[in-house]
């Protein structure tokens, strides 16, 4: 019976966004199986078969408390689960090999299911990188900052001269810097003066952009074409440069997404085949929305928590499906 078809939620256990979505599905009576891939193969078992001439995997995924038949799955909410953990009894190199086998098997059997997805991890992967995002965003009709990726100091200085205004520097990909003492460090977006550019830029790729003047910033969550926009008002210089660095200096409210921006975002998401995206925008003093980046599995629990925007319900709407 269609109404009994389960939704599978794949996430770490301590994930507020996944909790919100599961809570919504529970309230609607939609059967859910939630698991973290870190439980495979020790506490989760998988048996999947494929026939010679019939497309599609069939079988059972079981976590010891509940199970789903793969062919019954109606939708999957896939949100950065852990990686499979292999039993400690398996020796080092065999454990690494076994983890790769387990990871590949579970992820790719599940991602081959003909279900509704938020988001298929293969699409997430493609959609997650900033240089490609700038191209896709511009093609979709969004305004982006003038940018350079380089390891040549002279080119960076030429870019600075071309921009003829303030610059920022940011990592091209997220990642902590472990210098071996205390907590791992974060490289946030920071102001870069033309005189700051030196030969140390040659040591790796650098991502430099014009600093966009900000009236405020927006964390915009898109779910199945619906826009949920939170205005972030920064009240410190640090927060105005990178709002993540000064959480006590932030104010939140709901704002409206301009129709032109919403239409462009739908084109952007269609180009990647993703249903969900957490976008960062600056809104200039003239009211222009400038795209910074998309996090295809970005955080949003705090957006709903602080604004009341019904983001979890939108997830549940999509995962549940409209005709069950």
């Amino acid at each position, binding site marked *: 019976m269609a109404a009994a078809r389960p939704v599978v*939620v794949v*996430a*770490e*256990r*301590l*994930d*507020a*966004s*996944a*909790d*919100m979505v*599961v*809570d919504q599905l*529970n309230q609607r009576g939609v059967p859910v*199986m*939630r698991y973290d891939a870190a439980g495979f193969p020790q506490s989760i078992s998988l048996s999947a078969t494929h026939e010679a001439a019939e497309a599609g995997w069939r079988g059972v995924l079981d976590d010891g408390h509940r199970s789903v038949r793969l062919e019954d799955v109606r939708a999957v909410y896939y949100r*950065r689960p852990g990686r499979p953990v292999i039993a400690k009894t398996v020796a080092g190199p065999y454990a690494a090999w076994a983890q*790769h086998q387990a*990871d*590949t098997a*579970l*992820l790719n059997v599940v991602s081959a299911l003909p279900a509704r997805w938020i988001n298929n*991890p*293969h699409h997430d*992967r493609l959609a*997650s990188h900033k240089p490609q995002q700038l191209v896709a965003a511009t093609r979709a009709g969004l305004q982006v900052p003038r940018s350079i990726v380089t390891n040549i100091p002279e080119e960076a200085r030429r870019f600075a001269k071309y921009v003829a205004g303030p610059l920022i*520097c*940011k990592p091209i990909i*997220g*990642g*902590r*810097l472990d*210098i071996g003492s*205390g*907590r*791992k*460090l*974060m*490289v*946030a977006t920071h102001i*870069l003066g033309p005189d700051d*550019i*030196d030969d*140390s*830029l040659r*040591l790796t790729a*650098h991502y430099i952009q014009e600093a966009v003047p900000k009236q405020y910033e927006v964390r915009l969550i898109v779910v199945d074409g619906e826009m949920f926009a939170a205005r972030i008002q920064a009240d410190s210089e640090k927060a105005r440069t990178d709002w*993540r*660095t*000064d*959480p006590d200096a932030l104010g939140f409210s709901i704002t409206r997404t301009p129709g032109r921006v919403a239409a462009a975002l739908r084109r952007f998401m269609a180009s990647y085949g993703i249903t969900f995206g*957490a976008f960062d925008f600056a809104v200039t003093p003239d009211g222009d929305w400038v795209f910074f980046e998309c*996090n295809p*599995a*970005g*955080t949003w*629990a*705090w957006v709903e*928590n*602080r604004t009341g925007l019904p983001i979890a319900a939108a997830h549940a709407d999509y995962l549940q499906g409209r005709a069950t």
Partner: protein
Amino acid sequence: MTTAAIPLAARAAAEPPLAVTSVQGVTWDDEKQINVQLDGTPWHTTPQAASCTDTNQDGKGDDVDDPYFAPAT
């Protein structure tokens, strides 16, 4: 290590702000498949850290080592 050996962008490295969402007393409800507080109310209804650094508990946050990297994709 000399200054010249540190890439320009990495000189701005600093500890991320400590904006931890409280998980004290939070337990897993296996029936509901969500995290709950001691009184049974869902954990997600408590204030969540407004951050996408690794100091919040909304999953891994956006700014971790390539959150989309999985060898299997």
